[in-house]
């Protein structure tokens, strides 16, 4: 797999603060990755996403060291919109990222800014609505949709610009569990079927680990550990990094410990049951 984002020795301190929100961060993200970014609040997740998206250092001023390279472009040397076209950022509060009075207009907003001709724009909007199954929302007013629907529209509006990476900053924290799951399904579809690289900052590991192939854990502006989802969960108890342990992998580990079994690391209930059966069959 080829490399899409490369972060080298990145440090950033916001104006008027006396600590580094990012402290010598190194990270490489490949095309097609689904990366789960976690860590306690204030650990630098949001800052890292902003730095990839170009909001840092263009919109947020501060002390900037190191390099972020995305698709051979050095982020700090380009305008925000040049980078935002490649790496779109979806925010926590959906209401603040919807500006227009109909869903189709909302999806077209980014394309309008990029001065894409109307016919082409209509084609892209239609395709986006079709692919993401938003036909029933098309003419509705974004401000009056439910939280889950709003977040889907916000994601669609970014996807319409056909970025290479979708960055999501705690997109599920304002949502009820039911809508959160439908939003996750949408994100997964973008990753699996449409080949979008995903980088998502989120606390709710339980929901996301089955879809992610990599985990990055941060604290105090540094990356503590980083690697393939299963191997990270196998090797570490995430509690030690101030991150909630996801339940299913932890369950397997506890059972293994108590009954001296060797159930393989599992990310979903079904997988756990299968692995549990296998282990029992092997033993008997």
């Amino acid at each position, binding site marked *: 797999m080829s490399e899409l984002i490369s972060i080298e020795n990145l440090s950033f301190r916001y104006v008027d603060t006396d600590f580094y929100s990012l402290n010598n961060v190194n990270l490489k993200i490949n095309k097609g990755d689904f990366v789960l970014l976690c860590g306690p609040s204030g650990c630098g997740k949001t800052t890292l996403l902003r730095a990839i*998206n*170009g*909001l840092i250092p*263009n*919109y947020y001023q501060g002390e900037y060291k190191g390099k972020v390279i995305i698709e051979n472009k050095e982020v700090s040397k380009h*305008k*925000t*919109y*040049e980078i*935002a*076209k490649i790496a*779109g*950022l979806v*925010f926590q*509060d959906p*209401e*603040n*990222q919807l*500006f*227009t*009075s*109909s869903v*189709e*207009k909302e999806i*077209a*907003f*980014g*394309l*309008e*800014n*990029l*001065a*894409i*001709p*109307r016919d082409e*724009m*209509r084609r892209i*909007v239609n395709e986006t609505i079709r692919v993401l199954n938003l036909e029933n929302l098309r*003419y509705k*007013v974004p*401000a*009056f949709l439910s939280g889950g629907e709003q977040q889907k529209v916000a994601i669609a*509006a*970014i996807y319409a*610009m056909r970025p290479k990476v979708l960055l999501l900053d705690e997109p599920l924290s304002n949502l009820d569990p039911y809508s959160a799951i439908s939003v996750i399904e949408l994100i997964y579809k973008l990753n699996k079927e449409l080949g979008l690289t995903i980088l998502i900052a989120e606390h709710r590991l339980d929901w996301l680990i089955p879809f992610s192939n990599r985990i990055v854990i941060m604290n105090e502006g540094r990356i503590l550990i980083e690697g393939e989802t299963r191997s990270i969960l196998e090797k570490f108890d995430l509690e030690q990094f101030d991150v909630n342990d996801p339940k299913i992998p932890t369950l397997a580990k506890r059972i293994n410990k108590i009954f001296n079994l060797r159930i393989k690391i599992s990310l979903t209930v079904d997988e756990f049951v299968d692995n549990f059966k296998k282990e029992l069959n092997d033993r008997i």
Partner: protein
Amino acid sequence: MLRPENFIYRPKDTVIHRLDPRSKFYYAFLMLVLAILTIDFNLLLLLLLFTLFPILLGKILKQVLKAIQSSLFFLALIFIINFIFSLNVILALALVIRFLILIISFLAFSLTTSIDDIALSFYKLRFPYDFVLALTLAYRFIPTLFKDAVNIVDAQRSRGLETQKGNLIKRVKNFMPVIIPLLVVAIRRALNVAEAMESRCFGASKRPTNYYELKIKFGDILLFVASTILFIIVLAEILGLVKIAIV
């Protein structure tokens, strides 16, 4: 009680909703000029009758009636004051009708025209994109800020804030614990919105393209011609050039 939802555009598919905002505004503006120029009771009644067409065609009668209901106080005030000063029932009624024409003709515009279309008209008239977008955003965030305000009032009340007691000055003073957090929330929202706009490539082009299109259609020409003819006839009547036979 002033209820904002009675003054807010709701999408509907009618002849009036489909008209170009410029022709609707032209119509509303001519009605305004005529209503101000004349004080003749019969003529005003005739104009009032004309204002009803777009309301009925646009299926917004209910909203208009509610809006009139919330301005009943002003209408009564206009009637009473004018009656006291002139002791002329007809004149007082004429002034009430004048006010009604103003309300109804502008509601016919604002209730059937989406803010996007209004903004697009400004854009077509070569207003800068930033200005047009600011207009849309201001309108877009009215319900959101309203919701924030309600939340803050509730939160402060649950901490013991009295908003209904005391004289006017005391009440205004009591609202300070609402105003300040609301201001902070609004500023924070504005910063988030700006950030989200950056992320949607705002500023990439000086003259962005538009998803929607404004087109002068047959209906617009019809409305344009009809309101111009009406304007000329009524103006002629006001100036005493012609006499329209009204009962």
